[in-house]
């Protein structure tokens, strides 16, 4: 198909109307020639011979009559070895390389090669005469911690393809032709290690989608035990500003038990991304003993960067996640914040003069959010292995009120809801996940029945606390007061976690099981008290011991000593049976 050309007819913010001459497709990419700059844009609406182009740059200087060149390609990302450790903007422009070329500022119209021009040690898996189809592996390279599979481009669907030639093992440039394939009709393709895929199209080259049943361990107690996330599942973290959404995501990105973490910093503060950029290369991943950066990809489109590429950035991130999933890996995608992404859609919708929905968000907000989260999933690949993409998104609701369109649309499609509350963060209770309103549909690392019992005590304690506010401590029975104190203990000892303490910051499953058992025994213990002051004194002491316990290394002498102290303390109040 010949590439279409066009000319600018109108400019309204970052939406440019273009008159085109021959066929163009929706979501096709076009470039506007402004002086010697070329500005990238995406076709989002076509009417007659006019297309609305969402431009990924600032549109100052664009004039009516400027040339537009369409590419007949949809907005795509490059996939291949070398993606790990990269820092991209929303359009997969490598930011450090851009800085090397343009200095402090993001110069518009500069688009660099996303995949670095490296050479890789190449090992063929297929041989001449083998029959392959799209997504099949024909070679591997070692990319840091992983065996990166070089696959037949996902869009070569007119297979099966017969390998006509393939290079011998050796070192090749990432863009060298390393394999040629041919189909029955004689169509031939030369393959390199790199290919592209349109970001808004989910990659579906798998046998079947599986139910997400395996827990994704985050080493955060309140999540793993009470509000678990599953590999291949989805969850959201709404919260008002200052409640610690970003800190929680950073902790998760460090400790999560997955192969690769993709951080999509979407429309939030640049300073926060900088912390990740500077800290991750220094941090050691306990799973591998290597730098955390080696398993990380950062897609960074902060609040001051152009809005339209913010819209693209979450798709860029999820496409890269799906690509690595095709290699049988587990990927966690953290998007911060999906509200900013939704706002980008709202801005565009306004410029298109679409009829607005609630709070001026477009009517398709819900379906877009659903579409995005549905790209998560655990899948069985054609060769029998499984891979997964887990998506966790923060939501920044206006005024901290969850009754707004983005939060509500997100809640419909996620499997777990970690709602952060202003009350908890004001009281410095971190993580500020509200145990009363949050929920999860996934199974955790601890027996669900026991977790439910512990949870019911937290609920009961909250009710008693509400009542105490009215009737005072005097009007509360000793038994109720004990329940209240038990609930407070669960909160202080188990739900809260000190991310600055080297031991408490990340708690492995084994330790969670162990200490939960002790806590559970405590909750079940039949305690005898005469009066409330006695209850208070006992629980203060108990809580202090439990808290100290959280800061000691698992099963070392001090750990055991404190455990013995706790056991003794409980024994002093335990009612003997019989």
């Amino acid at each position, binding site marked *: 198909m010949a590439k279409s050309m066009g000319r600018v007819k109108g400019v309204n913010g970052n939406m440019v109307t273009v008159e085109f001459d021959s066929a163009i497709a929706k979501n096709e990419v076009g470039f506007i020639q402004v002086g010697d700059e070329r500005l990238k844009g995406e076709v989002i609406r076509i009417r007659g011979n006019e297309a609305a182009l969402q431009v990924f740059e600032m549109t100052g200087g664009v*004039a009516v009559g400027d040339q537009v060149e369409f590419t007949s390609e949809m907005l795509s990302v490059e996939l291949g070895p070398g993606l790990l450790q990269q820092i991209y903007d929303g359009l997969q422009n490598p930011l450090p390389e851009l800085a090397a070329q343009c200095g*402090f500022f993001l*110069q518009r119209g500069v688009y660099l090669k996303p995949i670095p021009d490296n050479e890789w040690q190449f090992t063929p898996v297929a041989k001449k005469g083998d029959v392959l189809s799209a997504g099949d592996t024909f070679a591997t390279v070692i990319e840091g911690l992983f065996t990166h599979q070089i696959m037949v481009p996902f869009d070569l669907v007119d297979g099966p393809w017969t390998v006509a030639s393939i290079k011998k093992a050796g070192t090749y440039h990432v863009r060298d032709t390393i394999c040629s394939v041919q189909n029955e009709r004689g169509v031939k393709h030369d393959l390199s290690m790199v290919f592209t895929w349109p970001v808004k199209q989910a990659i579906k080259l798998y046998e079947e989608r599986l139910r997400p049943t395996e827990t994704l361990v985050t080493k955060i107690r309140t999540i793993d035990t009470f509000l678990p996330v599953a590999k291949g599942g989805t969850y959201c973290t709404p919260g008002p500003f200052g409640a610690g959404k970003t800190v929680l995501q950073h902790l998760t990105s460090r400790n999560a038990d997955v192969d690769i973490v993709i951080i999509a910093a979407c429309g939030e*503060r640049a300073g926060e991304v*900088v912390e990740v950029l500077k800290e991750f290369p220094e941090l050691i991943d306990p799973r591998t003993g290597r730098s955390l950066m080696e398993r990380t990809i950062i897609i*960074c489109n902060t*609040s*001051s960067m152009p809005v339209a590429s913010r819209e693209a950035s979450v798709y860029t991130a999820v496409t890269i996640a799906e690509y690595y999933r095709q290699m049988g890996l587990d990927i966690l995608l953290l998007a911060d914040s999906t509200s*900013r992404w939704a706002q980008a859609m709202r801005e565009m919708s306004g410029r298109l003069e679409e009829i607005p929905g609630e709070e001026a968000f477009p009517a398709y907000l819900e379906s877009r959010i659903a579409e995005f989260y549905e790209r998560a999933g655990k899948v069985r690949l054609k060769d029998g292995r499984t891979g997964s993409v887990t998506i966790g998104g923060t939501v920044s609701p206006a005024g901290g009120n969850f009754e707004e369109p983005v939060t509500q649309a997100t809640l419909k499609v996620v499997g777990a809801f970690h709602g952060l509350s202003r009350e908890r963060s004001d009281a410095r209770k971190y993580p500020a996940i509200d145990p009363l309103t949050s929920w999860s549909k996934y199974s955790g690392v601890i027996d669900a029945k026991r977790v439910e019992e512990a949870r019911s005590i937290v609920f009961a304690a909250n009710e008693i606390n509400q009542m105490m506010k009215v009737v005072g401590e005097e009007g509360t029975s000793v038994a109720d007061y004990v329940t209240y104190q038990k609930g407070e203990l669960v909160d202080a000892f188990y739900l809260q976690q000190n991310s600055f303490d080297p031991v408490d910051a990340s708690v492995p499953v084994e330790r969670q099981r162990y200490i939960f058992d002790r806590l559970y025994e405590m909750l079940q213990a039949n305690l005898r008290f005469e009066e409330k002051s006695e209850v208070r004194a006992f629980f203060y002491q108990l809580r202090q011991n439990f808290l100290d316990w959280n800061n000691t290394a698992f099963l070392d002498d001090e750990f055991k000593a404190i455990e013995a102290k706790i056991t003794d303390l409980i024994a002093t109040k335990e009612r003997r049976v019989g």
Partner: protein
Amino acid sequence: MQKIYSKIESIVGNVITVRASGVKNGELGLVSYKGGQSMANVIKLDDDVVSLQVFSGAQGISTGDQVRFLGVPMQVSYSDNLLGRVFDGTGSPRDNGPAMKTNLIEIGGPAVNPAKRIIPRNMIRTGLPMIDLFNTLVESQKLPIFSVSGEPYNELLARIAIQAEVDLIILGGMGLKYDDYLFFRDTLEESGAMSRTIMFIHTASDPTVECLLVPDMALAVAERFALDGKKVLVLLTDMTNFADAMKEMAITMDQVPSNRGYPGDLYSSLASRYEKAVDFEGAGSVTILGVTTMPGDDVTHPVPDNTGYITEGQYYLKGGRIEPFGSLSRLKQQVNAHTRDDHRALMDGMIKLYASYKESLEKRSMGFMMTEWDEKLLKYGDLFERKMMDLSVNIPLEAALDLGWEILADCFDPADTGLRTDLIRARWPKAIE
């Protein structure tokens, strides 16, 4: 020679349209009318219909008036000669000084590449204990002052302008009362701080469009000085007026409002200004302090709410004081470990005691008996409010820390304070039994 267009097609609010060709988006136009001349900038192109927002407002513009396009976007002059000068939102002098026409730079330039940013590392001393000691301001930080109308936020900004240890102050005033503008000018002149200050002032009686330009003008100049190695502090007052000006423009342009009439891009528009705060590796820095008045003292109002998601903390100005509760400098942890060994401990300890004082106050107001401990707290709270929280206090951080110990020693026994023993041994100003 540029072509002159002499038929204005429509005049709606401050926006006029003309039919013209070859015009670029964002370009400046000069409108000549009976009342004089005004600049205008192109905000929308639709085939040959060009929409311009007129800086001085469209009042008195007739359909037969002339528009000439200048071929350049909005620019501001940049040189050392700007120091001590006062300009309006379009960059014209307000102080009877000469107009600045040389060395022009574009406003609203591109964002800084996140890969070039560095982790903030230097504190900015302001001489105000409530900032330096309790919520340290850090170079490259962006912080709003959340307040309500009637609070002395402009007095606070003026004090910071006089006292802050930076090379350059740029003051952006939006919708200022004329009195407030005069107050700023006179106060800075009297204190001698004017010589390191540049002001871009839009007063409440000036045209709305000029209000929209103020932050961009101020920040473009600030950015350039920072690239030249200067430590710049930008003070913006009041960002709520700026947001309201945006609202007005958006409604004029028939944009669908999102929340309480504000346009859907409120967050992005605020963020692109605040995110100009940066520390350039090997050069200077831009730090932003902006006043955000909260209509009805409501922090969930769209302007403070969106601001809170953008900035790195906030100062609450309430009852003429910076409130220790609610105020937060998110970046203080980056610097307060390196100031003095007792800084963090004293900061936490004093605030905890102040919180207890508030509880005692509440108990007293409900008519409860005051214990000996309550009496100690009441004395402490009173001293703390008078000696630390008062906005007129101007002492260096070290003196503020010493003062903190003195106040503690005046009111408490060492063990009451909950501070670490080694610190108390080293710093307690009285003999310890």
